[in-house]
């Protein structure tokens, strides 16, 4: 049942009317397969050959499974009608199967594990969009069998209806974005030898468009190297100018940012002089202790204790900040979530509406954030170590554009592109 598809946030997604057809028999030498594919293209549709089994001998039949795509449901219908006489029939479809979760936090055997591509499940004959898609989670359907949403293993409750097997589930290919920029290639080639300028220009273009158009949020996830290496002013300026709506970080970025505000050092190094100052290694501990005494970062900013820097800008601009702790944290700062699963949930809850993600100088936050993102979100991963963007791509976030570059240089160039005079 072809129907116009809806994207994750419910907006119409052109080019997404699709149906899978199968064709059997002696379809290769007869040029029947070629004719069917030509017909799809000539009518303005597109196809993905999902499966072609060529008979081993002339007597053996062949079989092809073709995903037919068109810009509208009407065009799709016309194409299906035109190829049907040549033997291409709509694949027999069944509803998805599901089973109740056997216990809290346990999925039924054979549960379907998601990808981060837009996905649909078939419920009572209708294809339903899976809400809040992300990779490596399960799909829960409501008891009325009218909607479906991702659920993590930990959040599954006993009796939840969890999708199992592979029938009645389809994963939609990503549409190329309309914007003709670096993100439209949707590939994560990582190389320190690639020119950076145009990527940074494109990122700035997206950020400006999101801020001025108000059509989505920019998420920034970063590590403390931003402060150590000198990217703090540029990032602060971008937050102050309204280019960042969500910040993911750990204890360290916030601690060193506020250490800089209070002592002018980062991990004890004088940010201006570049020398280790006497007893400087204690500064971040004293910073954390001070904020713990005040009760929260927000109060520290509002009472004038912390007057400048990344965290101060976030409080002033009302940026949603999620700080996730790690095992080696000092303190931690108030607001750092030390339960990893709770941190994951908080990060997930901050994602709706995010359409651009900058992952800068943090392996942990880059991979963690990447895992939570739908493939449709434009993502750029910046690290001086090429293994970080590579790791992100290997973990499945193929849409992330990798940039091998020092965090401070990246942030300063990006901010200048946006109008920073620093």
């Amino acid at each position, binding site marked *: 049942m072809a129907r116009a598809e809806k994207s994750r946030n419910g907006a119409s997604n052109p080019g997404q009317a699709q149906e899978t057809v199968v064709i*059997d*028999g*002696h*379809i290769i*030498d*007869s*040029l*029947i397969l*070629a*004719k069917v594919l030509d017909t799809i293209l000539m009518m303005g549709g597109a196809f993905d050959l999902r499966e072609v089994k060529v008979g081993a001998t*002339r*007597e053996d*039949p062949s079989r092809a499974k073709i995903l037919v795509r068109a810009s509208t449901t009407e065009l799709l219908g016309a194409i299906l009608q035109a190829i049907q*006489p*040549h*033997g291409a*029939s709509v694949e027999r479809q069944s509803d998805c199967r599901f089973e109740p979760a056997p216990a809290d936090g346990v999925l039924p055997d054979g549960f379907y594990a998601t990808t981060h591509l837009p996905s649909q499940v078939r419920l009572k004959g209708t294809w339903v969009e899976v809400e809040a898609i992300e990779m490596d989670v399960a799909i829960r359907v409501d008891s009325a069998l009218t909607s479906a949403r991702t659920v993590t293993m930990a959040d599954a409750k006993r009796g939840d209806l969890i999708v199992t097997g592979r029938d009645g589930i389809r994963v939609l290919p990503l549409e190329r974005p309309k914007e003709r920029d670096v993100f439209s290639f949707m590939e994560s080639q990582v190389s320190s030898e690639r020119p950076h300028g145009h990527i940074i220009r494109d990122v700035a273009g997206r950020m400006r468009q999101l801020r001025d158009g108000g059509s989505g949020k920019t998420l920034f996830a970063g590590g403390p190297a931003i402060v150590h290496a000198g990217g703090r002013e540029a990032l602060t300026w971008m937050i102050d100018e309204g280019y960042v709506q969500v910040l993911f970080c750990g204890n360290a970025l916030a601690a060193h940012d506020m250490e800089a505000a209070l002592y002018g050092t980062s991990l004890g190094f004088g940010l201006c002089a570049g020398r280790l100052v006497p007893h400087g290694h204690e500064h971040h501990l004293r910073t954390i202790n001070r904020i713990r005494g005040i009760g929260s970062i927000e109060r520290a900013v509002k009472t004038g204790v912390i007057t400048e820097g990344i965290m101060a800008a976030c409080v002033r601009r009302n940026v949603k900040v999620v700080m996730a702790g790690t095992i080696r944290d000092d303190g931690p700062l108030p607001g750092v979530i030390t339960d990893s699963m709770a941190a994951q949930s908080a990060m997930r809850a901050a994602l709706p509406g995010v359409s651009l993600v900058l992952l800068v100088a943090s392996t942990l936050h880059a991979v963690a954030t990447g895992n939570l993102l739908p493939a449709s979100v434009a993502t750029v991963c910046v690290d001086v170590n090429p293994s970080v963007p590579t790791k992100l791509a290997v973990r499945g976030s193929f849409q992330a554009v990798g940039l091998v570059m020092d965090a401070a240089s990246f942030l300063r160039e990006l901010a200048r592109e946006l109008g920073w005079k620093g």
Partner: protein
Amino acid sequence: MSHILVCPPDYFDIEYEINPWMRVSNQVEVERAKSQWYELMRVLEQEVGALLERMQPVQGLPDMVFTANAGSVMGRRAVPSRFRHPERQREEAHFEAWFRSHGYEVTVLDKELYFEGAGDLLGFPDARFGGYRKRSEIRAYARLSEIFECEIIPVELVDSRFYHLDTCFCPLSGGELLYYPPAFDYYAQAAMADRVAPERRMVVPEFDALKFACNAVCVGKHVVLPAGCEATMQMLDARGYQPHPVPLSEFMKSGGSAKCLTLALD
């Protein structure tokens, strides 16, 4: 000896119109039709040396005379036709019964998997072709290739006057192909060219094609074809075949000729 199934034209008539040749207003001259049919039988038996099996005609089934559409036979296996038009669907049971009573291993296709027998499935021992789009359905060939354990290359018919494969495509015993290419789409022509070498392809001119020159019966070096196809006869003669023209004008009123009136049984 070549073994051929035929059905006497006792009830042959034009009672409906299911192809561009048929006009109810263009009535069959019954006596002439009968004499043409008996002449065809005489040529087949006496000049060609074929052995004829005669079916019992059935009143009210005027097209049963066209036994090419009884089904398809390979060795001892037979698949009776599934006609597209309801007018001819009533013939199916009679053809099926004949195959069964004569010891064939019969496989019946699903209802609505249209397939009109040897009218649409023809070829050489190493390359069989199945006409589709007008009468038979392409899906039938996937099933038939399973049943007969052979390759069947579907070819699309694009001209309604050539509504069955045997109206525009005639494989000869020496490996040559007598055919009328414009009756097929580009892909079918390319697929045929791939399987039948250029020197084996004999293109029938339009004038002869419209007289159903391709609706011919080939037994050894004998080719029985409708009268009036001079160019085709010359081509056959040049290739060492002996053409036997038979006047079959009454059957052309129904869109059939020599080949349509016969079914090769082996």
